[in-house]
């Protein structure tokens, strides 16, 4: 598991049952709103967290989501860092999964992943 110090983060969410997906979505939404993100960004962030939480619940049963505010670059652009952490089975071929190779199995599962890469630059 990734070495993350929970004290560095503004929000730490434990994902253990299905209800936590909706809770994490709501928390992420509030956090983004509080940091003055636009409505479009708030929705995207909440959706991303929702997808991550679902992946944790589905494939690893339990895990954590860490969220914090970050200032990047010299102009101190405000960003939100989201880390999803679990001890799941892992993805055999990350490149394939991110490229949309999982699409065929059941349409909706691949979609979340592809988008995370685009929106956040990394998995």
């Amino acid at each position, binding site marked *: 598991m990734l070495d993350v110090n929970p004290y560095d983060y503004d929000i730490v969410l434990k994902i253990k049952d*299905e*209800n936590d*997906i*909706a809770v994490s*979505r*709501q928390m992420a*939404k509030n956090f983004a709103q509080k940091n003055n993100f636009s*409505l*479009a960004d*708030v*929705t*995207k962030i*909440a*959706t991303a967290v*929702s*997808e991550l939480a*679902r992946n944790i619940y589905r494939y690893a049963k339990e895990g954590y989501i860490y969220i914090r505010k970050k200032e990047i670059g010299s102009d101190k652009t405000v960003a939100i860092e989201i880390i999803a952490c679990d001890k799941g089975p892992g993805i055999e071929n990350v490149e394939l999964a991110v490229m949309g190779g999982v699409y065929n199995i059941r*349409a*909706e*599962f691949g*979609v*979340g992943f*592809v*988008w995370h890469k*685009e*929106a956040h630059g990394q998995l």
Partner: protein
Amino acid sequence: MRNRVVPTIKLYDYLIVPIQIELDDATVEKLQLQLLNEISEKNIKGIIIDVSMVDVIDSYISFVLSETAGMAKAMGCYTVICGIQPAVALTLAQMGVRLRDIFTARNLEDAIDMLNNLE
């Protein structure tokens, strides 16, 4: 009826479903079952799902909604989703989510017009 997660309104042959609750996975699956039951029990020819109060629709929720539309279609019932918020539309489109089997309308009036035209 037991297991009703969303209160619905029957209007002529149509069923109006205003979603005003937070949709989690279990709820949306219950909603699917509820709608299918209501189609057969109330002899519904068209379903209108109003999501104007829903702030976040992720890939699974949209998948279940369009899956429901596919099931309803098999039962001879059209499904129209209306009132998708701009930010939600933007997010869904950028995620590459496509709503299959499901018609979309701007608002409730448009949705009813659309169903009238479909028959």
